[in-house]
Each structure stands twice: as C-alpha cells, then as structure tokens.
C-alpha cells in the first residue's frame, strides 16, 4: 500500500526543526518563566514522533542511531548525579547553586546547576515518550 504522503514528508522536514528549536527554547526559558525540562522534553519528543509518523521507523532509526530506553536511563542518571554532587561539597541532597559568569559571547550570564537536573529530566521525557509511542506502534 502506497499512500502519497509527499506533503506530509516535506512539511515535517521543515516543521521538525521548528519544533526542536521551540523545545530547546522552552527548556532554557524554564528557569525564570513558564517552561522547563518536562515541557521542553515533551515538545522535543513530539518532533521525534512526527519524524516516526511521516517516515518509516527503519529510515528514522538509521538516521538517528539512539536507543531511547538507554536515553531515558541516561536522563535519570544525570538528574541523580546533579542531586548527589552537592553531597560531596557538604550540601544536602538535591541542593542547587547558581552564579554569574562572564562568557565570551553572551556577556554576564547566570549559570545554575539546576539546568543539569532539568537536562536529565528532559532526556528522560524524550526517551520515555518516544519509547511508549514506538512500543504501541510496533507490531510483533
């Protein structure tokens, strides 16, 4: 069965990039505004899901050699590490800190360790969501 899905394929090529950018924007804006790791991760995952929808899973898996199960495990690990790290500096578990640094291009920037934690969450969400969709859609 061949459905003529040239419109879907062409549009998704462009839209995937937009969705990914929006996801990353949401991820970074989460520090002081609505957004954050979970929502950013969901949006990024929806970009991947769109790719799986418009192309077959072999093509996408060939282009994106990511094991999404391991990606979510990596995310949990990253979040946990950001929680464990302060324990070695005498802080409580999950303590966060932030500071202001002068970076070459951005100028004075606030960098916070909570970003690492949020990054872990985002990876976990991407991994889990894509995994769920794949496991429902794959027929054995």
């Amino acid at each position, binding site marked *: 069965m061949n459905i003529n899905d040239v419109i879907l394929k062409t549009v998704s090529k462009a839209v995937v990039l937009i969705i990914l950018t929006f996801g990353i924007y949401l991820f970074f804006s989460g520090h002081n505004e609505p957004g954050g790791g979970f929502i950013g991760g969901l949006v990024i995952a929806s970009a991947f899901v769109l790719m799986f929808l418009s192309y077959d899973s072999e093509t996408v898996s060939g282009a994106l050699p990511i094991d999404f199960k391991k990606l979510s*495990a990596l995310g949990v690990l990253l979040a*946990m590490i950001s929680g464990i790290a302060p324990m070695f500096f005498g802080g409580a578990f999950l*303590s966060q800190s932030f500071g202001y640094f002068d970076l070459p291009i951005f100028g004075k920037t606030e960098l916070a360790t909570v970003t690492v934690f949020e990054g872990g969450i985002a990876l976990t969400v991407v991994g889990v969501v894509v995994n769920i969709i794949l496991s429902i859609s794959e027929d054995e």
Partner: protein
Amino acid sequence: MNNLLVLPMLLPIVVGVLLIFLRTYGRVQAWISIASMLVTSGISVYLLHKVQTDGIFRLDFGGWEPPFGILFVADSFSVLLVLTSSIVTAICLSYALISTSKELQTMYFYPSVLFLIAGVNGSFLTGDLFNLFVCFEVMLLSSYVLLTLGNSKRQLREAIKYVSINIVSSWFFLVALAFLYGAVGTLNMAHVAERVAEVGQTPLLTTISIVFLIVFSLKAGLLLYFWLPGSYSSPPIVTSALFGALLTKVGIYALFRTFSLIFYHQPETTHLLIGIMAALTLIGGSLGAIAFNDIRTIAAYNVVIAVGFILVGLAISTPASIEGSIYYLIHDMVAKALLFLLVGTMITLSGTSKMAGMSGLMKNYPLLGWSFFVTMLSLAGIPPLSGFIGKVLISGAAIDSGSYVLLALALLSSIFVLYSLLRVFKNCFWGETIVSKEEQPPLRKGVLWPCLALVLLTIGIGLGTEGMAPYVTDAAETLLNPGIYIDAVLGLIQ
C-alpha cells in the same frame, strides 16, 4: 548533614539505572543488585543505631527547611522496616539468581525490583504526604512492570485488574491530599499533625482521614483485599514473594503513620472503623485460606489474615499493642517471603499449583518439607519463632483494653492459618508418592539456600527478641507520642 538518609532510596535507583545498561548480563545484574541491597541493609543498621543515640533526625532536600521543602525523616519505626525490607529483598534476589529463567532476567527484572525497593524505602522514610504519594507511585509502576513480566495470559488479565484498581486508589489519594491541603494548608506530615492538633480534629478532618483510610486500606489489603489473591498468585514466584512481603506492608505503614501521628484525636470514629475493618479482614482472609485448593491462593489469603492481625494492634492503640504490631510486621515480612518462596519451589518441583497434584514430597525433599513446617509454626505463632511475640503482645493488649471480639477473632485466625497450612503440609508432603527417588526432578542446586536463610532469620528474630526490644519500644513510643516526631521535624524553626 544527614545525607546518608536518602541512600536507601537513592542507591537502588542509581544501581537500577546502571543495570539498564547491562541488560544482557543476567548474572552480573543479579550480583550487583544483591550487593546494593546488602549495602542498603548496612546503611539502615547504622541509621537505626544513630536514631537510638541521637534521636529522630531528618534530611531536608536541597536545604529547604520544613515545612517548605520535601524531607526524609528517620525514626525507629521507619528504619526498622527499611532494614527488614532490604534484607528480605536481598534474599529474594538471590533466589531469583538461582531459579529464574534467563529470558526474565534480561527483561529488566532486576532494575524493576530495585525501583520497587526505592519506592518502598522512600515511602517508609518520607516526611511529606505528597512525597508519600510519589513514592507509592514509583513502587506501583515497578510492580505493574513486575506483574506483567513473562507475558502469560493469566498475568495480563490480572495485571489489568491490578492496574485499574490502583489507578482508582491513587485518585482517591489525590482527592484526600487536595482536601487536606485545602483544610490545613500544608502537606508536611509533622506540620499537618501540629495544625490538626491545634484546631482539633473537626468532622471535616475526620472525613478526610476516612478517605485516607480507604486509600491505604486498598494498598494494604485491609477489608478491600478483593484484588489481592488474584494478582499475588499470577506472577513469577520471586515477584509474588516480594509483593507478599513488601507491598501490603507499605500500606500498613502508612495507616500506622497517619492514624498515630495526624488523625489520632477521634479514636471513637477512626480507630473503631479500623477495628471493624480488621475484624472483617480476619474473617474473610480465614475463609479464603481454607476454601481454596491452589497453594498460591492459600498463601495469598495468608497475607490478608496477617494484615487484619497487624491492624488489630492499631485499632487498640496501647503501647503493648503497637509494639506487638511492629514485631508482627517485621516477622510477617520475613515469613511471607519465606512462605511464597517455599510454595514456589513446591510448584516448580511438581509442575502444578493444585494440592491434588502433589503428594509425598517429604520422601524426596525432607529439607524443603521441614522448612515449610517451621514456616507454618512461625506464622501460627508458636514460640520460640518470630510470630510468637507479636501475637502475645497484641492479645495481651486486647485483653487489657477489653476488646474481646478482636481478641477472639485474632486468635481464631491463628488457628485458621495453622489449619490452612497444615492442610497443605499434610497433602503435599505426606501421603503416597508413586514417583521414585530417581524419577523425581532434582532440586536446582542451591535453590534452598535463600529459604534456609529466611528460616534462620525467623528463628533468629524469635530468639533475639530481647536484642530488638529497645528499638521496637522506641518505635512504639514515637508512634504514641506524636510530639516527639513533630519536635524533631519542626524543632529548628520554632
């Protein structure tokens, strides 16, 4: 800083995540997870000692002081349960290493068990009601996965019922949390307890407490146990053993915590209700235990009886009865894991779970038979085994407080436990067997070691009650004097 306090939850999660990367190495996973459980046990022993010397202590996550942040609180009760569950899990995992098939081991069995333990330990240690909900969900999600591992038709069917009933009970939990937050404006257990004590337990708060009672009863299998026998008798035996030993106990812990720390002002309503529910649970569980011919179902109904028995202690709520409940809770974790492992070994040997299909196992497997005999005595409460002290204390407290109905039911249920297991013992181990020694399938090498370890543990708890006494007394004292707990949590900011 008391960062050690988070390790009983953190260590299983981190190790579980690492094991996902080692998916294909079944035996390596087993050894690593057993080692991590042993480390957790070691940490719990240290924590128990520290509680004994320094009093209750807490860990504020991210340095947010109570009542604003999430926190873990260690008191003797919770740490004793963490210790017991870690040891029991280590032993169950070693049984899995010996007996479980390779396919199961590579299907994320060990990570799921570790996440389950993380949820269980987190529920024991947390000092925040919403965090309790989250830990429950961590535990439940892992239990859903464990229940469906293996993919047999029966498992899938039972899993759908189990998952649906737990979704509904989680919904009730959220409803109760929402109303409680609306009523007292906080979810930190100590803070809630303080505010409830200040304003008095109004009818509204009592109603909220009954919603909590329904939620935790569903998890513990108190009266609302109809889902339990089916789902505990369908998964692989190690999973059943872990469920039987740990899952209902978390619900029981939550009942003890909420109804001794927060909602203890109206015992004529709440504790009476708990007493009635416990009585009905004892009756229902006893009838179930003698009604069935499937030995796994019999074992599952024995879990129900124990839940009723432990909650009798909470319904009476005197120092002796609470102490008895704690002893019995610890005993039951060990004994139920043992019972399920033995039953599972019997099923593997005879290829059926029906009593009619087994006979004369004693001739070829005397060690298995006598282990089962010891387990039976322990569950029935024969001294010097571990079940004895709990039964004596609860019965004594029931006499002192004049709760003769509960006393009669509790003692009758012990007879039903004895009868139901004696029936299994007589039918399966004695009688004629036509299978000769050569034809009997050999026991897998070493499969009895974990069972023997648990047998030794139940004997050890029975004989070493004297050594445990200071910890249990301290736990009961904290439960009966909420002020100690509240001061330890909120002390710094007042």
